[in-house]
């Protein structure tokens, strides 16, 4: 089955990004497809390459980048990103910036949309 993921909240501040990541990992392990992961609202802050948490904690952006390297489409909303200072220059690898139309496409291509947020 094809799942689309929407993330509405920022990293560390809220569990949303962790729940979404754990869900995606479990879904992939079960053989499901992820049509895309879309960051919106403060969720766009998940995409900054400059995250540098203490070494004994998870690196949230690194996890997203690794999923992106596996071919999962990870998209940051351009309008929400511009508001919050996320631009190509601070975007982590394997994540792209695009418009809200991509979230519509992702929704239409997915069997299920699930939203994680605050």
């Amino acid at each position: 089955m094809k799942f689309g993921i929407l993330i509405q909240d920022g990293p560390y501040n809220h569990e949303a990004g962790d729940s979404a990541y754990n869900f995606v990992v479990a879904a992939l392990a079960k053989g499901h497809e992820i049509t895309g992961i879309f960051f919106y609202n403060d969720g766009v802050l998940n995409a900054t390459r400059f995250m540098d948490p203490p070494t004994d904690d998870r690196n949230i952006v690194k996890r997203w980048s690794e999923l992106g390297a596996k071919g999962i489409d990870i998209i940051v909303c351009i309008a929400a990103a511009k508001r919050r200072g996320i631009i190509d220059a601070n975007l982590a690898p394997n994540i792209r910036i695009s418009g809200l139309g991509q979230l519509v496409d992702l929704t239409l291509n997915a069997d299920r949309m699930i939203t994680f947020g605050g």
Partner: protein
Amino acid sequence: MNSMRFSRFKEYKLLHTVNKSPLVNSSLEQCIEFLAKDEPILLYEDAVYAAQAGTRFEIKIQALLKTNPVYALQADLKARAVNNIINGVKIVDYNGFVDLVAEHKVQNWL
């Protein structure tokens, strides 16, 4: 066309997910108001506190269990030391979470 839509309706009972503690936020109560009978509810993140026996919300979960299946996410329960689970609440891991989403359309109460 109408009969097709009806069969889809029967097939895709909604899954309701709730992620906030019912002791400080009304999203679980709101979810309960908009539920249909037999539709499953998944408690995760701070909503797993609703699964704990002995809270002032327990009576509402007890009533809910008479009409709807209630699930709570194991990783969030464990993280919060919610050990004394209300009888009838089913514990699922992330695989179970994925299965619930695969089997239902989803309404996320955030």
